């Protein structure tokens, strides 16, 4: 990686005289973000919802249309509060399998404009370096991509282009809804000058408040603090913020084959103290997450458990697994231990989540010196995957998930959860 966190690629071209010249090219990262994704899909598929405030969610808003946002609604708001602010809003339960299919189609189009794509449910980063030779200058490339998604899929997206991942995302956010923005190399500091400090990646509510107490409210103002001062205030995060407020971001693109995390989480239909139900739900979430791990031919090194009580107090803890694994049965033992440590109050749980991280490539077959019991569990998981790939996840209910039968409805894709998780 070159200075300022920019990758550089070198091209050779033959000049007219027959000799060779080396031409330096800067990186071009594209960030594509579907506008109000779930709500936009609902409005596309149901004409009666167009130009109306639409909410998708259960318990709280997962996504809402721009008509709803103009009434003060936003993602994360409780439906009760949303109903008071906007009684005319139409509530859709949501169909996450449909949203995934639309997302896949959008990413297929994006791959025509980028080499390597890092995808999430409603956004993606791609490396468009060199693609200007095919699609034109960055803004033209961005507009062509946006128009093609609208023509072929029917959904609006915002596009940001810049020399690094962070700037591309900030650019697309600045262009929402339905816009395209390009930050030219060298213009990052000007672009960030008036950016509210809370919108800088790495600045959460607490840090924003701490900085506001020092009268620092924009990224431009943050540049007044030296690296040493930021480091002493915020530790390693301060060092990162020193770079970020100057538009520098050392993060590289991670094509989807190696995600940083795979997570599954959900809210219970009713808050519960029933340990059997909680364990069953955690096993089911872990099962779904591990299936994604196996599909990507990875093994997991760390698991994080988060729980939220009915009084909204949230706890989370993370553990390294005894050895990397792709079988939920092995990871579940650790999850049970973490649950026993964290769930001690007599306040029901309303939400649980599992986050897997620390991935490495799977060995691709039998593991030398693998204990027999673990080998047979791994083969069991692979066999279950084969059945589910053919007949749907609900074809087999295994392990602790059996305790969810009779409590939750099922469809071909599995148990119908109240707030199905998003994989990031």
């Amino acid at each position, binding site marked *: 990686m070159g200075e300022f966190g920019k990758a550089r690629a070198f091209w050779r071209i033959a000049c007219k005289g027959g000799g060779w010249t080396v031409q330096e090219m800067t990186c071009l990262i594209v960030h594509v973000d579907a506008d109000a994704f779930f709500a936009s899909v609902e409005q*596309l*598929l149901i*004409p*009666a919802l167009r130009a109306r405030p639409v909410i998708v969610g259960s318990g709280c808003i997962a996504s809402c249309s721009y008509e709803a946002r103009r009434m003060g609604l936003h993602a994360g708001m409780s439906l009760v509060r949303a109903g008071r602010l906007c009684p005319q809003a139409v509530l859709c339960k949501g169909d996450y399998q449909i949203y995934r299919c639309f997302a896949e*189609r959008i990413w297929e189009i994006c791959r025509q404009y980028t080499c390597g794509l890092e995808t999430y449910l409603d956004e993606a980063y791609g490396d468009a370096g060199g693609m200007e030779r095919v699609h034109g200058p960055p803004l033209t490339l961005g507009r062509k991509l946006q128009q093609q998604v609208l023509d072929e899929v029917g959904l609006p997206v915002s596009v940001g282009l810049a020399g690094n991942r962070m700037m591309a995302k900030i650019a697309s956010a600045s262009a929402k809804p339905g816009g395209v923005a390009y930050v030219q190399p060298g213009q990052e500091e000007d672009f960030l000058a008036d950016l509210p400090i809370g919108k800088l990646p790495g600045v959460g509510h607490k840090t924003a408040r701490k900085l506001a107490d020092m009268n620092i409210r924009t990224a431009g103002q943050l540049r007044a603090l030296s690296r040493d001062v930021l480091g002493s205030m915020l530790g390693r995060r301060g060092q990162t913020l020193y770079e970020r407020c100057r538009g520098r971001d050392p993060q590289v693109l991670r094509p989807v084959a190696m995600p940083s995390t795979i997570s599954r989480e959900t809210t219970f239909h009713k808050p519960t103290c029933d340990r059997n139900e909680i364990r069953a739900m955690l096993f089911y979430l872990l099962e779904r997450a591990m299936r994604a791990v196996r599909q990507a031919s990875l093994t997991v090194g760390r698991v994080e458990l988060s729980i939220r009580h009915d009084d909204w107090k949230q706890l989370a803890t993370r553990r390294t697994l005894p050895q990397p694994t792709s079988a939920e049965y092995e990871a579940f033992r650790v999850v049970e231990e973490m649950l026993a440590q964290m769930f001690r109050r007599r306040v029901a749980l309303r939400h649980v989540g599992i986050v897997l991280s620390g991935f490495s490539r799977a060995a691709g077959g039998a593991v030398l010196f693998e204990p027999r019991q673990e080998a047979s569990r791994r083969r069991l998981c692979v066999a279950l995957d084969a059945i589910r*790939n*053919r*007949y749907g996840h609900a074809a087999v209910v295994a392990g602790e998930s059996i305790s969810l039968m009779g409590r939750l409805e099922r469809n071909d*894709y599995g148990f119908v959860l109240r707030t199905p998780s998003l994989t990031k």
Partner: protein
Amino acid sequence: MSVEEVGEAISVVASFSGGKARPVRFRWGSRTYRIDAVNGQWVDRSGDAYSLHYSVQAGQETFYIHFEAGEVQWWLDRVILEG
């Protein structure tokens, strides 16, 4: 707005052109519905075979239908009525 989950097999007349399939009309029970517009479509590749899904408009009603390639069968998934 009311949503009715159906899950019934239906007969569909569709046109196939340029690598795309477009439903034109379908028969559900004793009634034939002429499709005025295709609101949106998506392909589901989970499972062994793929399925082609459509949201179609027939008058004031919106229908979600899909073609299951493995079974070679059209299905009516849900009906959405305004009001």
